[in-house]
Every structure is written in structure tokens, then in C-alpha cells.
């Protein structure tokens, strides 16, 4: 019998599958943290998680309210500064993967976490870059997490906070960026990747139960959907059990 799972739980599992044993990942709270923890408990026991504010390889026993919550620092192997993590690890080039959240992502994987124009023309300011631009610029690859809505998956971001493939093709390389750019976009409807030569977003798999029409209508740019497009592999009962053990109060895995 198939296991019941929420969309957030599916996203955690997909995120975990993108992480490999032996890798170093900068993770923030929420789906990224749970994805890293799940990967460590399954196929990637030696994955090392970094918290940008100066924490390496923690073993938290509780979830908290954000990166600055000491609950996420518990059991760490190392405390240092932002520069220790984001300078001497990330900028130095030893971080394999960084997770990014986004208000908007465009077809070239550029993301916006800074500000949105309201329909009336006024500005709405959000959190800004924090370490997001640093990760997008310098990590070997990034994984972007976004809600799948036509106003969030857009042709062109209204403010380019963190670089994907910029205007596509060789633009990222020509701008002088060292990191490899986004490898995946995980949404509540699909898993997306990028064409190697054009840098344009392409569909990898559709989540179970999402129709092609729904996906098309929820994407703000032209996304090619082949008729035999793959369906995202559902979580195993063991994966769901582990996720609920990690987030027993369902702070980050409820919904849908």
C-alpha cells in the first residue's frame, strides 16, 4: 500500500536525494535542514552540514525558529565566524551545495529574495540576500526551493538578488562567477533542472497527482512538458517515518 505523505515531505525527500555522501552543504532551516538530516540518516551518513553564521557539522536534537536558534547548533564540531563558514569554506570553494529559498525564480535560475513590486506599483521589501548571493555565486551547485505559482516562476526576476545563469548561455561564466550555478529547482509541483548549454530551466519530473495543465498554468514562462514526462518518485514508508521523527511537531512538513 502506498504511504500517505504531504507535499513538503515529498520535497524533503527529493532534496535529500540530491545530496551525496561525503559532500559539504550549507543548509538553512526548514526543508533544506530536513533534507540534509534525512540524507545523513539514509544514503549520505558523512554529509557535512554548515550553518552560515559560524557552525559546522551540528547534530541538533530539536528544530528551532531559524539559523540563529541555538537548537540548530547543538552537537556541532566547530563554532567560528561567518567568514569561517562562508569565507574560508564557501568562498574558498569547498562547498558542494547550497540551498536557496526564493520569492521569485526565473527561467535561467536567477532568484529574488529582496523585494517585490505590488500591482499598485508600491514596493514590498523582504529579507534581502543574507548569504544567498554568496552561495549562488560560489557553491559548486545550488538547489532552489520555491512555490510553484505563475507569479513566482517568472520569465525574468524583478530584482536579481542571487545569480543563476544570468541571461543564459555563457553569461554566468563571462560575469566571472566561479560556482557552478543552480542544478535543481524543487517546487510543490515538480522537480526542474537546467539545460547545460542554454542554462534554461527544464522539467525533470512532475509530482504525483499534478496535471500537465496545472503545471503549465502555474509556470510564468514557457516550459516544455513532454507527454511521457517522468513522475517524481514517491517517498518510501521509511523516509516518511524518518522525516516525522526529525520534525515530530510537523513545524516544517505540514501543508498540502
Amino acid at each position, binding site marked *: 500500500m502506498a504511504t500517505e505523505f504531504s507535499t513538503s515531505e515529498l520535497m524533503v525527500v527529493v532534496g535529500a536525494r540530491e545530496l551525496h555522501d561525503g559532500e559539504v552543504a550549507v543548509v538553512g532551516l526548514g526543508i533544506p535542514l530536513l533534507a540534509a538530516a534525512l540524507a545523513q540518516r539514509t544514503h549520505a551518513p558523512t554529509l557535512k552540514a554548515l550553518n552560515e553564521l559560524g557552525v559546522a557539522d551540528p547534530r541538533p536534537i530539536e528544530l528551532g525558529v531559524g539559523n*540563529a536558534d541555538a537548537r540548530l547548533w547543538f552537537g556541532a564540531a566547530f*563554532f567560528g*565566524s561567518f*567568514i569561517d563558514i562562508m569565507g574560508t569554506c564557501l*568562498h574558498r570553494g569547498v562547498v558542494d551545495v547550497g540551498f536557496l529559498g526564493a520569492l521569485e525564480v526565473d527561467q535561467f535560475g536567477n532568484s529574488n529574495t529582496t523585494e517585490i513590486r505590488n500591482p499598485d506599483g508600491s514596493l514590498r521589501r523582504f*529579507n534581502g*540576500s543574507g*548569504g544567498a548571493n554568496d552561495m549562488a555565486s560560489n557553491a559548486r551547485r545550488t538547489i532552489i526551493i520555491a512555490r510553484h505559482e505563475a507569479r513566482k516562476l517568472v520569465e525574468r526576476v524583478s530584482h536579481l538578488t542571487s545569480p543563476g545563469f544570468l541571461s543564459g548561455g555563457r*553569461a554566468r561564466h563571462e560575469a566571472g*562567477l566561479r560556482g557552478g550555478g543552480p542544478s535543481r529547482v524543487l517546487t510543490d509541483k515538480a522537480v526542474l533542472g537546467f539545460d547545460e548549454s542554454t542554462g534554461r530551466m527544464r522539467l525533470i519530473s512532475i509530482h504525483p497527482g499534478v496535471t500537465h495543465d496545472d503545471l503549465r498554468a502555474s509556470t510564468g514562462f514557457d516550459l516544455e512538458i513532454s507527454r511521457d514526462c517522468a513522475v517524481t518518485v514517491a517517498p518510501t514508508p521509511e523516509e516518511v517515518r524518518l522525516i516525522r521523527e526529525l520534525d515530530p511537531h510537523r513545524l516544517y512538513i505540514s501543508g498540502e
Partner: protein
Amino acid sequence: MSKIRTLPEAAGLVKDGAHLALSGFAISRNAVAFSHELIRQGRRNLTISQAIVGLDADILVGAGCVRHLVYGGGSLDRFGLVEQINRAYELKRITTESCSSLAVCFRYLAGALGVPFMPIKSLLGSDIVERLRESGSVHEMDDPFTGERLLLLKAMQPDFMVLQAQMADEEGNARVLGPLWDSKEAARAAREVIVIAEELVPTETIRQQPELTTIPGFRVSAVVPLRHGAHPTALYRCYDYDSDHLREYVARSRSDFDGYLRDYVLGKSHDEYLELVGGSRKLAQLKADPMYGY
């Protein structure tokens, strides 16, 4: 010679128009009591810098003390956004240099080393760099050795840094426990450091383990021994963040910010503030478990 000062005396060192680097990161280790005192003293036209802003910067901006903000971003984590900063930005009540957090740290590092700028491989190709160009704090060049494209960030040397620490001695030798975020580089870049210390300890305690000293006393101008100076934000190994009060701050920040300042800040001493937020009973609930640090 003792550098011990009262909170009003230490805040009085920071004059109108000064550049002040802050200590907090979202909901942790904010020098909140120091922000309160600057508001009470009616400070104006400050430049504030911080890798990730928290309540310490937000309340200063909301109270009208700030003219210019150099920051990487920030929020109050799951409690909410920094509404005062975001509104001031939207309404252009303050000017900003919106960077990435690593860029702010690198600007402090350059300032700390006394070099005029620091190259970085972040920000290239982004809209962030377009806006920073207008502020004159970035410049692009090719590496003279390899030809690689670099972004140069202008060094930052704040007039003051306020450092919330767990302990210090009367000479100003200060020890911060837990992750340091931008505090180490900010303190070294600043011309003067003001330490807010949860606990005043004998200098022998510091000198038994000097490798734990975050900033040596000769770089520090003033030490303010003060209990719960970071409330409602957390101080690692001392006390947890106060969820109730952070929720009240966020709720009233949207609709009744002036009322919040009247109720908790203006005309109140730090001790009166601690009574108003729940007194010894509340503070006992927040006390950190030494096993966990929170």
C-alpha cells in the same frame, strides 16, 4: 584602569551621525539594551552596519535614530520580518547599502586589516552590485596576476562597535560564547568597542584561557556589566529568546510601534524594562540549560 561604565554613559559615547556596528544576528545576541538607551537619548542620523540585522537594528530604525544602513539582509526568523527597516526602505526614510552578508563581513575584514578594499567573488552579475555602484562602495577590476574578474568592496571602519558578550573583565577583555557571525571582524574594524557583558569576571578568569578572548581589552573603550542586555533575543549559554515578547514586538511593530516604545523603552530604565516583560519569573523560565546552551 577600570573601563566599567553605566549603560547611559556608554551610549553617550556614540554621538549623532556616528557609524555604529551592531552585535546581533536575527534573534540572537542583539545588544538590545544598548539600542534602547540610544533611543532614550534621542540619538539621530546614525549609520548602522550589520551582516544580518535583528531587533537591535530594527528598533533603532523605527525610532528614527538611523539615516543610513549597510547590511546583508535579515529578519526575526519565524517570528516575522524586520518591519521597521523594511518600511523605512520602502518609504525611502533611510538610505541603504544592501549587500550580501559575506560582503559586509569582507568590508569589516578589510577595515580590520587596514587595507583599503577587499576582493570578493560574490555579487558579480547581480542587481545588488548595480545599486552598490551608485553608493561608491564597489569597483570591478581584473586580477593583475591572472586576469580573473573581481569585485572590490570598500573597507569599513565603524566609529563604534557594540559587542554583546557573555563575560568580560574590567579591563575590557571580552569573551563571546557560541558562533561569532560578523562580531569578530566588526570589533576589529571599529575605532572603539563598547562591550555589554552579561557577567563581569575577575581578569584571572580571562587570563586562564586567553584563547577564548574574542577581543582584547586594549581595543575596548567601555564595559557595561548588564544582566539580560540581549532580551528578548537569545544569549547562548545564558538565556533563550523570549518568544512571547518577540511575538508582541512583531505584532505591535505593524500597528502600534510608538505605543511599544512608550510602554517598554522611553522613560524606562533597563531594570524597569525587565520588570515589564515579566520580571524574575519570566527570566528564570528563559535561563539556558548548561547541557544544551539554550
